[in-house]
């Protein structure tokens, strides 16, 4: 995080705000709700309180304006610059302006007013931009599901550096952004996708392209806004050009960016017993799909569309050398790459043995 140079801050912690005009694209009630929720993001992590006033001069004035609007920082029409805000201080200090020519929404459609407002109020309180791509104060817009939004740890650290800890006896904590070459990095799920490899972690996924050196970190919501975070298992069915993602007892089918109709479905569709309520890892190979749960695995026949008989079996008995619980697995060149904690095991499906053990982050070119 970065504090605004000169460390401007509000002397008082009980601040007022006023919405001086509204956008026609949302009802006033929706704007009020988005703004209120955006302030709650910061009050939940600090001693600050925010009260809405309807008249008079508020500390933080909120307005929808366009193009040149008299503050020497003109807006630029749809997209580009979405909004800006001023550091704490008198007059224009603390005020937040939203580009009236943007499309403001309360959904995953660009641009979600709650998320942009929460970012701008960070400036109103004394924060500058963070270089942490997962932080709220990162300069670029990135959709995150508002209903489950949690202020990232980087932003909590920033606001508390200015105003001190929250009055809440239980100090809030937030998600941290995975860094590709952190040797402790573990993965939630891994799948191939049309020649690329996607490594899922919390609300992110690393995207590795066979021809590119650098590995991209993206929000899951960037590609699939309606998917939950914390994907637990994933596999690609290359014959159907589908990727299946699992969380709890639900699963989704994706075709590229599109989530297939009528999903999520219940994993009992695969024929799991009711005792199985979540899957650790999954991988498809030729006409079979393997599901790993604790120390056992099931084998599903993609053509008969049913579980093979005599399963589950113990993982260790079939995949010798894979002794610990499997976090994630994918298939490449007749190898199963098993990931458990920060380690991966290359299991040769022809030789039926582990031929390599190394750090998981090797797959992120570290």
């Amino acid at each position, binding site marked *: 995080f970065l504090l605004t140079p000169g460390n401007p801050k509000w002397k008082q912690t009980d601040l007022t705000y006023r919405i001086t005009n509204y956008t026609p694209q949302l009802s006033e009630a929706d704007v009020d709700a988005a703004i209120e929720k955006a302030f709650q993001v910061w009050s939940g992590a600090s001693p600050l309180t925010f009260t809405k006033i309807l008249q008079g001069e508020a500390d933080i004035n909120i307005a929808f304006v366009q193009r040149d609007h008299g503050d020497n920082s003109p807006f630029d029409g749809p997209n580009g610059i*979405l909004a*800006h*805000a001023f550091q704490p201080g008198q007059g224009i200090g603390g005020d937040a302006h939203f580009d009236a020519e943007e499309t403001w929404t309360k959904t995953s459609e660009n641009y979600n007013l709650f998320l942009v407002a929460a970012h701008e109020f960070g400036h109103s309180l004394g924060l500058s931009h963070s270089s942490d791509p997962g932080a709220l104060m990162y*300069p670029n*817009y990135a959709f995150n599901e508002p209903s489950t939004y949690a202020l990232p740890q980087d932003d909590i650290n920033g606001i508390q550096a200015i105003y001190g800890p929250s009055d809440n006896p239980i100090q809030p904590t937030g998600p941290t952004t995975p860094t590709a070459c952190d040797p402790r990095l573990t993965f939630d799920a891994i799948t191939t996708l049309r020649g690329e490899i996607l490594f899922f972690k919390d609300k992110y996924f690393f995207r590795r392209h066979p021809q590119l050196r650098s590995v991209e970190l993206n929000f899951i919501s960037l590609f699939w806004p309606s998917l939950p975070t914390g994907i637990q298992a994933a596999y690609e069915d290359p014959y159907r050009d589908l990727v299946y993602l699992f969380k709890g007892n639900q699963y989704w089918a994706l075709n590229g960016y599109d989530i297939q109709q009528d999903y999520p479905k219940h994993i009992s569709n695969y024929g799991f017993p009711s005792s199985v309520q979540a899957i650790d890892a999954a991988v498809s190979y030729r006409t079979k799909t393997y599901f790993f749960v604790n120390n056992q695995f099931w084998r599903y026949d993609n053509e008969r569309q049913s579980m093979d008989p005599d399963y589950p079996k113990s993982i260790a008995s079939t995949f010798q050398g894979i002794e610990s619980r499997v976090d994630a697995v994918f298939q490449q060149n007749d190898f199963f790459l098993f990931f458990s904690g920060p380690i991966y095991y290359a299991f040769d499906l022809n030789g039926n043995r582990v031929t390599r053990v190394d750090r998981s982050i090797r797959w992120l070119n570290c």
Partner: protein
Amino acid sequence: FPVSSESQQEKNLEVVQNYLQKFYHLPRNSYAFERKNSASVIVQKLKEMQQFFGLNVTGKPNEETLEMMQKPRCGVPDHAE
């Protein structure tokens, strides 16, 4: 017909200058612009931006840099003057 490369380059340069002026305090007005905006200042500001976004710090408007500059964002500069 294929866009001639120099007009694409001019376009890219415009995107870069516009972005750096807005968010990295590249001087705007003409005198300061000519005097101060010799290539080295633009390269230095470009490196600052690439550093901030964790891109390869090349000082050149490569594809990943131009792509980052096109993303919708907040209007507050990334580096305070």
